[in-house]
């Protein structure tokens, strides 16, 4: 299948294919958007503190001192959302054999040749990696963030902590920005129906079958055929 075919293929899905099935509960969606909002706040204010060329970003959230005051608090709120996500999704995010095969063939995914990949459960390998990287990053950002928040409380004899914290906080934040960019791109532009699923909580059967086939079999009661 060439790239052109993928984009231009006329839709031939049926009414059955377009029936909606639940994917994200109300609580999952609320928490996701809570996390998105708090992360975005930390991103905007964090970038303002990161480089003078983006310091103007502080102005759109009320100015430098306001941004500095709320950044750590929103970081804490984001940590809460991450903890709840861990409770909600931690089980679904465990890696299995298919995920490892999927990861080995990630080039096919990047080239939109999804039919060359093993069937995917509720979440694919990329989503799982994103999840665990964000959980780990949150812990590192939280610990280093506390040092930066109360930097004057760090005694001078432990001031190496300040040096370590500033590097960890900036480096890990950069990693999350990279992940976040990919996440936003994939869920809004790349995979059609993903954004709506996080807004309305539902996906079409065809969407589930196409992108999360194992999950489709699971929720529709279809037994999984031999692959």
């Amino acid at each position, binding site marked *: 299948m060439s790239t052109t075919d993928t984009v231009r293929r006329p839709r031939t899905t049926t009414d059955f294919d377009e029936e909606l099935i639940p994917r994200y509960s109300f609580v999952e969606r609320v928490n996701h958007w809570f996390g998105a909002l708090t992360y975005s706040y930390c991103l905007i204010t964090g970038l303002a503190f990161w480089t003078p060329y983006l310091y103007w970003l502080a102005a759109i959230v009320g100015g430098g*001192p306001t941004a500095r005051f709320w950044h750590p608090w929103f970081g804490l709120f984001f940590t809460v959302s991450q903890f709840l996500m861990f409770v909600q999704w931690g089980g679904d995010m465990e890696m299995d054999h298919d995920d490892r095969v999927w990861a080995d063939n990630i080039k096919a995914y990047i080239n939109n040749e999804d039919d060359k990949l093993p069937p995917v459960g509720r979440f694919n390998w990329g989503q799982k990696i994103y999840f665990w990287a964000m959980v780990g990053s949150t812990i590192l950002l939280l610990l280093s963030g506390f040092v930066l928040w109360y930097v004057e409380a760090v005694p001078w004899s432990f001031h190496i902590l300040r040096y370590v914290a500033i590097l960890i906080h900036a480096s890990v934040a950069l990693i999350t920005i990279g992940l976040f960019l990919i996440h936003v791109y994939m869920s809004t532009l790349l995979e059609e129906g993903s954004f709506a699923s996080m807004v309305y909580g539902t996906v079409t059967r065809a969407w589930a079958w196409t992108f999360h086939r194992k999950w489709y079999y699971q929720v529709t009661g279809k037994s999984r055929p031999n692959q």
Partner: protein
Amino acid sequence: MSQASTEIIKISGHAGTVPGAGLNREFQVCKLVDTTTCIGCKACEVACLEWNGYTFSQTTFANSYQTMPETAWNYWNLIKFNEHERDDGSMMLLMRKDQCMHCEEPGCLEACPADGAIVQYANGIVDFQEAHCIGCGYCVTGCPFNIPKFSPEAHKVFKCTLCNDRVSVGLEPACIKACPTGCLHFGTKSDMKDLAESRAEQLRDVSGFADAGVYDPAGVGGTHVIYVLHDAKNPELYGGLPKDPHIPYSVWLWKKPLKWLGNLAMIGGIVGLALHYLRVGPKREEPIPPEDRGPS
């Protein structure tokens, strides 16, 4: 010094030469602290509070004459006391007036993210502009001398200004004015350096302090507060004066390579994602084949 605006280079309608033109005038200021003649009277501490409008804070007693463990956001000038036992068993009371060093390469300024919150004047004074300070505390991390202090009330950071408000109108800093022994001096950097070196030479040749010397650390490009020490080889003895202060390596890593790598990666990432979309386009759902339709 402060007279930069009064030195005339050209005069209109003036016959003959310009008086004073070509005079080699130095504008770099410097405070010299001669720890060997300090008596620990703390007049400088009082003068600093008075001039800058702060009231006395609660003192902390820790078996020494020292007012408190370290400078505070509203206590910029603190004499650090150290009862030092020398090799021959005799005791020396080392006293060093601690305050902002006004580094030529200020770590606080390097670390600061807020536009205009820290400025360095041509005369060498490094000054915090609290109106622009956002209270992030990065300067606290950037300073190798533990000087900037966060005010929980103002949510901003404060430190010694080298009495910029006095110096700019031709006065010496308040601490200098108050010193009764003359251990504090104020003038141009080169004058103070000369004075310090001659005092150190005197200590070495006449007073028997073989290691006496001047503290003007090169790691931060020199400072606009310099010390004469009896033992310049062990500045740590003087209330923890760092031997080789420099902008912390992690601050350099963060502000130089990491920043540019990060900026490139972010821009590259956005461009890469846009190119990906243009190249391979969206992923769309596909029709379900008949054998997968309906519940089993």
